[in-house]
């Protein structure tokens, strides 16, 4: 399955359309205007155009409430955790492995932090450190299952997610950890505002910045992409692909841990199921992000753009008093539309390419 995804996304790159764009770029080489035009092409940032469309539509639809700075705050504040969760997926997906357990890791770290703060007299930094340590342990187990034991990543992380869920039930009895002790320092992790934005927004931006630097400007980033594009070719060229995939699952769990602690702090409690609600939105944002900025690659700013686009749409619908089902419908439509735009850039979907994808999926 993971191979299929990569086939789908990777085929976005070198087709006739791109070659034409390349020729245009070559012809305008050295001209900043040409580079800017290429960067702003709908092929690179279609979500930006969708975002502009959203802003225009809702500025007319809800003129009193949507076109305000408060909407920017609301979109970012209410989607910071989704952004962190989506970023946690970007690295393993770039390295051609799925991590379906991230949502359970979020729940686990939230419950762990709340437990140590509420039930013990542990200082908050120690509780947070333990929770992040637990997240890394989950990442390690995922890595052993997927990389060492060679279990398909989708099935393997689904299984570890189930084990995490069982562990949470064992510890909490499936009841939320609620205590007056969670009011104060613990709640400040996620509820403190700076310049109108809650701290998780800044966590999201910092994580995105780090991912961007690592993926774009370091040899490690290029090795991760190489592993994701063609694992066997990368291995034959000397890249330690197993190590890359191992570490990508560790990184995923760590970032999911940050997301889980932030979510738990925002809610003011340790909910045993808090993270599972983020499974689909995070994947939607990550896949939408993979069609943006660096089309065909899971990337940090594309993911953030995806989160903001989906968040702006759902917030606009809520401000326009749309029915409760509208948000999920919007997310689905945007995701299909964005992937359709990317698919247009690919070679015609012949039977051969379909077979190729199926072979990739089978072999993964």
């Amino acid at each position: 399955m993971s191979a299929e995804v990569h086939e789908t996304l990777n085929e976005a790159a070198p087709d006739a359309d791109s070659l034409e764009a390349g020729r245009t770029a070559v012809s305008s080489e050295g001209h900043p205007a040409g580079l800017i035009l290429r960067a702003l092409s709908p092929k690179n940032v279609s979500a930006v155009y969708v975002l502009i469309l959203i802003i225009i539509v809702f500025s007319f639809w809800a003129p009193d409430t949507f076109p305000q700075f408060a909407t920017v705050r609301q979109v970012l504040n209410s989607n910071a955790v989704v952004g962190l969760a989506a970023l946690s997926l970007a690295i393993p997906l770039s390295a051609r492995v799925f991590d379906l357990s991230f949502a359970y890791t979020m729940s686990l770290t939230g419950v762990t932090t709340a437990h140590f703060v509420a039930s013990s007299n542990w200082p908050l930094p120690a509780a947070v450190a333990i929770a992040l340590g637990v997240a890394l342990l989950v990442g390690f187990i995922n890595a052993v299952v997927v990389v060492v034991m060679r279990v398909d990543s989708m099935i393997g992380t689904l299984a570890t997610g189930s084990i995490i869920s069982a562990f949470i039930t064992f510890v909490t009895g499936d009841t939320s950890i609620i205590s007056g002790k969670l009011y104060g320092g613990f709640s400040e992790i996620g509820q403190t505002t700076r310049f109108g934005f809650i701290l998780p927004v800044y966590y999201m931006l910092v994580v995105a910045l780090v991912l961007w630097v690592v993926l774009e400007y370091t040899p490690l980033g290029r090795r991760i992409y190489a592993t994701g594009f063609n694992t066997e070719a990368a291995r034959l060229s000397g890249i330690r692909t197993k190590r890359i995939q191992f570490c990508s699952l560790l990184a995923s769990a760590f970032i999911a841990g940050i997301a889980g602690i932030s979510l738990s702090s925002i809610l003011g409690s340790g909910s045993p199921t808090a993270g599972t609600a983020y499974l689909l939105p995070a994947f939607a944002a990550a896949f939408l992000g993979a069609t943006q900025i660096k089309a065909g690659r899971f990337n940090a700013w594309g993911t953030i753009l995806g989160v903001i686009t989906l968040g702006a749409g759902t917030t606009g619908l809520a401000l326009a008093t749309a029915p409760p089902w509208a948000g999920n419908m919007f997310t689905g439509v945007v995701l299909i539309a964005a992937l359709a735009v990317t698919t247009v850039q690919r070679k015609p979907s012949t039977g051969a390419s379909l077979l190729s994808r199926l072979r990739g999926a089978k072999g993964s």
Partner: protein
Amino acid sequence: MQFYKRARRLSAVTAVAAALMLVAACGSDDAAAGGGSGGGGKVDTKGLAEAKALVKQYSVRPTEIPNKTPITAEVPTGKKLAFISCGTSNCTLESDIIKSATDQLGWTLETINTDGTPEKVKAAWQQVLRDKPDGVLYSATDRAVFEPELQEASKAGIEVAACCTLDKPDGALDYVIGTPQQSADVGKLIAAWVIADSGGSADSVYIDLSVFKILGSVRDTYEQTMDDLCGDCSYDTLDIPITSLGKDVPDKIVSYVRAHPDVKYVALSTDGLSAGLPAALKAAGLNDVKVIGEGPDETTLADIAGGQRAASVAFPYYEEMYSMVDSMVRLFTGTPLEDSADIAIPNWILTADNLPSSTELFPLVEDVKEQYFALWGVS
């Protein structure tokens, strides 16, 4: 070729635009279903006075337990009860409360944990049929899920009492406390607090969880009280789908309040909807919006004490759990059960001024245990 590709790209963007328009056109104002009296008129001074009187009356800690008739027969010891827990932290608290009563009576309590799903609840009832306790207590579940097991339990002579459910007592279900009728006053008190606090001119939104039918009576009395006591108030209802719980409830409420800037009061059908809400309102700069709900947990109590929440109507966990045990005492001693119409559930509006604790839940009636022990004749 280029033309077709561009056309397809355009069609994708058009699909998004069409979806937005369709959704907004289909849905505008649907979410805000519900009525509301018009605002902008003259304040109903009589209604306002009545609302203030209600708030004053129910801001005082109650002293009366639901049951009143003493039991004259000797209460047998050694009875075995089973409590089917609904899988929430509140149910865990309920189990602890019931155990404090059964310990005093010399009875044993087995708590069967479920996650509240029908299959787990049904499995719990099948365990009951295997264990054959003397009595079964359950909370906030629907008997339709376990009707065959309930009938079988009845045939086996197992007494059954329930709390906080729409289920009606009959031959198989002996006693129900926390019926919709008994809980209806909660909506009245929430509305009265909103009216009194606003000086009789509130714009409010009632946040409903219509999937839980038991909350329907709370919504009805909220709306009725608004209509009866506040001609100058307007209210609306926002129904939250259950799939939003633990996910985007705060965002939905913030969006509603931003879309309706006159709304300064948010009335929650249950404080279970409060998780993350004070923080979301604060982050959105909606610092002048007051929130009241029902059934606070420790987080809500801390929010009230810290000024992030205005008020909450306390849920009578201790009183209702002890009332269920009381029904078992009556059934085991052959004492007639009290008529549901004669049972008054205590209510208490909690604010920062009268909060007895901000760190743990507490009984509404301070000496609830002692009063029941006296009723049962146990020391």
